[in-house]
């Protein structure tokens, strides 16, 4: 084969790049899968906690809604990566006519982009798995953004990151990540708190049993809506990342405004499978750890989450489903006089949120450096093996104190994983 000369060498080079591309796609689907089980609780924790749905039924319903939601994604979301990393230059427009004179183009070569995306994805997965092990609901999008930012800084310096956008719209790390993260849980908590307060005023004096029964139906309807919105938003992000990788390596036309069908199919299946697996550790923290809730509060929380998510997407305000869901559940505790909010649990979540960007970024940067040291192909293989190793290790640790459908609703007695991991990990490094 080598004796074929230049043609054969070209063949080998092409397949090396294809190998990296395949690893990126597989890793992206792995991220999509963790995205699914990390976020099952956002929609279903309240329905599981109040008994509106049996745990297995709840995750199955959420998985179906995510699958449908993912298939609804038609518009390509290439801007996901661009929101934090400078991957595309802006299209140049003629100021007089508004006509595009130079279309948006990639700012770096395909290889360079693939290695940043691979590092970023691994950073996101590792942080998702660690927070799942600790039973911490944290944002999957932030984990991905953190990983990408870390890899981009290591590769291209501080200027490789889109920190604040260009001032024409909410953009960049500040506009699309940090500000929404601060604002959205507060807004969700206010809305859910108000809803809870109003509901309990209105149903005062009605038999507890019959109101619980009715509100369980309300919970199922609103929780399904949240799952559907999640499937559309989050699966679309992974589809965007994979499509970007395909464009960067010349496997998909940059002008196409569509997602390749196989990308849509695999992403939809990955997020639905992850959702069906159910992140029971996180479901437990959200449903039992933060506030003890009853059906009316469950409906208030999911209605608030759905409203905030849909209103924000309408207004172009990017936010994380996790932050909204957590804020809503907290709000239902605040809105019901006499309800207990476990501020210790809430505080630990906030610490997790603050650590998400830097921690995922650190892993992303580290992974990119490995790729840089070993060369793209060998580096990508080593990075992938490290990811498999870490994932296997954390899965092994989770079996020490397994949480599943059988014990997800048990009496709350502290963070589920706290006993199974070292104290430094359990507190996220904060004593």
């Amino acid at each position, binding site marked *: 084969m080598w004796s074929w000369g230049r043609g054969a060498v070209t063949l080998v080079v092409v397949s090396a790049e294809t190998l990296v591309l395949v690893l990126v796609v597989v890793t992206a689907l792995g991220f999509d899968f963790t995205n699914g089980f990390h976020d099952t609780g956002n929609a279903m924790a309240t329905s599981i906690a109040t008994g509106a749905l049996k745990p297995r039924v709840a995750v199955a319903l959420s998985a179906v809604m995510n699958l449908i939601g993912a298939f*609804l994604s038609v*518009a390509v979301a290439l801007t996901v990566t661009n929101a934090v990393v400078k991957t595309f230059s802006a299209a140049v427009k003629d100021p007089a006519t508004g006509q595009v004179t130079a279309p948006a183009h990639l700012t770096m070569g395909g290889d360079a982009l693939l290695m940043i995306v691979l590092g970023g994805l691994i950073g996101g997965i590792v942080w998702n798995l660690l927070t799942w092990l600790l039973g911490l609901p944290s944002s999957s999008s932030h984990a991905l953004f953190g990983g990408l930012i870390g890899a981009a800084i290591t590769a291209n310096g501080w200027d490789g990151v889109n920190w*604040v956008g260009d001032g024409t719209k909410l953009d960049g790390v500040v506009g699309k990540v940090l*500000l929404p993260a601060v604002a959205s849980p507060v807004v969700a908590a206010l809305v*859910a708190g*108000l809803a809870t307060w*109003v509901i309990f005023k209105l149903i005062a004096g009605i038999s507890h049993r019959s109101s619980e029964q009715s509100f369980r139906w309300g919970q199922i*309807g609103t929780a399904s*809506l949240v799952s559907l919105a999640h499937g559309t938003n989050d699966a679309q992000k992974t589809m965007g990342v994979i499509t970007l990788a395909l464009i960067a390596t010349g496997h998909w036309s940059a002008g196409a405004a569509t997602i390749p069908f196989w990308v849509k199919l695999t992403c939809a299946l990955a997020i639905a499978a992850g959702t069906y697996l159910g992140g029971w550790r996180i479901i437990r923290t959200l449903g039992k750890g933060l506030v003890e809730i009853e059906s009316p509060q469950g409906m208030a929380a999911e209605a608030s989450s759905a*409203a905030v998510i849909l209103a924000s997407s309408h207004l172009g305000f990017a936010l994380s489903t996790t932050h909204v869901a957590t804020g809503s559940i907290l709000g239902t505790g605040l809105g019901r006089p006499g309800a207990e909010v476990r501020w210790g649990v809430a505080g630990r979540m906030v610490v997790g949120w603050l650590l998400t960007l830097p921690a995922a970024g650190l892993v992303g940067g580290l992974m990119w450096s490995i790729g840089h040291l070993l060369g793209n192909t060998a580096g990508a293989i080593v990075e992938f093996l490290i990811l498999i190793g870490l994932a296997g290790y954390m899965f092994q640790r989770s079996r020490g104190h397994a949480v599943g459908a059988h014990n997800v609703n048990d009496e709350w007695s502290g963070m589920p994983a706290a006993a199974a991991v070292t104290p430094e990990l359990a507190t996220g490094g904060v004593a």
Partner: protein
Amino acid sequence: MSGWSAFVKDLHYAGTAIWQVLLASVVLGAGLPMVFALGVRSLAWGSASEGDEGQGAAARPGNPAGKVLAVLLFAVVLYVLALGIYYIVVGGHGKELAFHGIWPEQVAKK
């Protein structure tokens, strides 16, 4: 555009967006459960009650008007949920909804 001025603009845009999100979310997110709670209340009014368990309240007959009202209120809730689903479907296609009264129409995203 310097970084600082883009940062200030981001703050400004976010401030505007947050108010709008809060307003819309209060109307939908708190309004929907409120209508639902009214429906539950009407349903209780419409059903024969045996009083709360253990409180020994006297039994009273149900009022049919309560049932009718409950059905109407639950229909409103279902309509809003359906709108939510429709909005997500349309959004996945890169469009959004505009409203003429209560009927939605698909339009191109701004």
